[in-house]
């Protein structure tokens, strides 16, 4: 990872094509670091004693942390275009816990022609190591027609 150039390019894009998959290990250290960066110290994320007594039975990751991985996948796939033409529409289905391994994936659902633009619509998904869907939804990207 790390390159600015997108891994998917417009002329070759096809319906059904997979987006570059990401795998992320979720640790309490990650969650704490995110709490410090975001300023969201809800005890359900960072206080193990509090969280143990909650319906979740332990700490859970911030939903926006997991969503950031989806945005990372879209950046790897489409590069800088994602920053000013991207769209995410997701549902948080299940909590993500410390120790989970999250796989972020997606594919191109269709490609639409708009006025002077092309819109790429994708299905996106985050699953844990048990195959449970933790985030599901759609992403799309508007690109200038070449």
């Amino acid at each position, binding site marked *: *990872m*790390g*390159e*600015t150039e997108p891994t998917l390019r417009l002329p070759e894009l096809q319906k059904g094509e997979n987006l570059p998959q990401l795998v*992320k290990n979720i640790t309490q250290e*990650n969650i*704490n*670091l*995110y*709490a*410090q*960066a*975001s*300023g*969201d*110290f*809800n005890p359900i994320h*960072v*206080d*193990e*004693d509090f969280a143990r007594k909650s*319906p979740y039975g332990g700490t859970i990751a911030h*939903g*926006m*942390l997991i*969503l*950031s*991985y989806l*945005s*990372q996948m879209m*950046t*790897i796939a489409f*590069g*800088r275009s*994602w*920053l*000013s*033409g*991207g*769209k*995410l*529409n*997701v*549902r*948080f289905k299940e909590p993500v816990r410390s120790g989970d391994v999250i796989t972020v994936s997606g594919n191109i659902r269709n490609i639409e022609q708009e006025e002077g633009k092309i819109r790429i619509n994708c299905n996106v998904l985050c699953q844990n190591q048990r195959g449970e869907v933790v985030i599901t939804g759609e992403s799309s990207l508007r690109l200038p027609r070449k």
Partner: protein
Amino acid sequence: MLTKAQKSTTIRLCIMTNDFQKVQPDQLETGYELPPLSYNLDAEVIAKYLEAVGESSSLYWQSDNRQALTGLVPPLAITTYAMTLLLQRLSLPPGSIHVTQEIEFLKEVRVGTTITCHARVSQNWKRGKFHLLTIDLSILDQSKEPVQSGKVGFILPS
């Protein structure tokens, strides 16, 4: 659990909003507009965010100096800080769950930009034990140009 010392290492957003009073749930009727939330995306805040989410793209980090930022802000950082301030403003009861998020990125944003987030209750719907709260977000830069728009949904305990 984070210690006080660890919490003290938190990067503090430069919050430009002056009157930071909490909004009580009974104020959250459909159409209610929260006071605008403003914050500055300085380099320290963005570097800390990138490290926390494990983002190493050279869109954000200079390829010849991995300690230096390119100046581009990851779009979800903008959403994240808007959400953090929104949640600090709302007095949502314990047990509330963030269930949906919709966001569109309209414009690239550079480090140093001052962001203002306008939030409006678009749905506050109760039926039996089910209570859904939806808030529309409109996020602008200091030139009042839209940089993001979206919607966030919560389920609240009844």
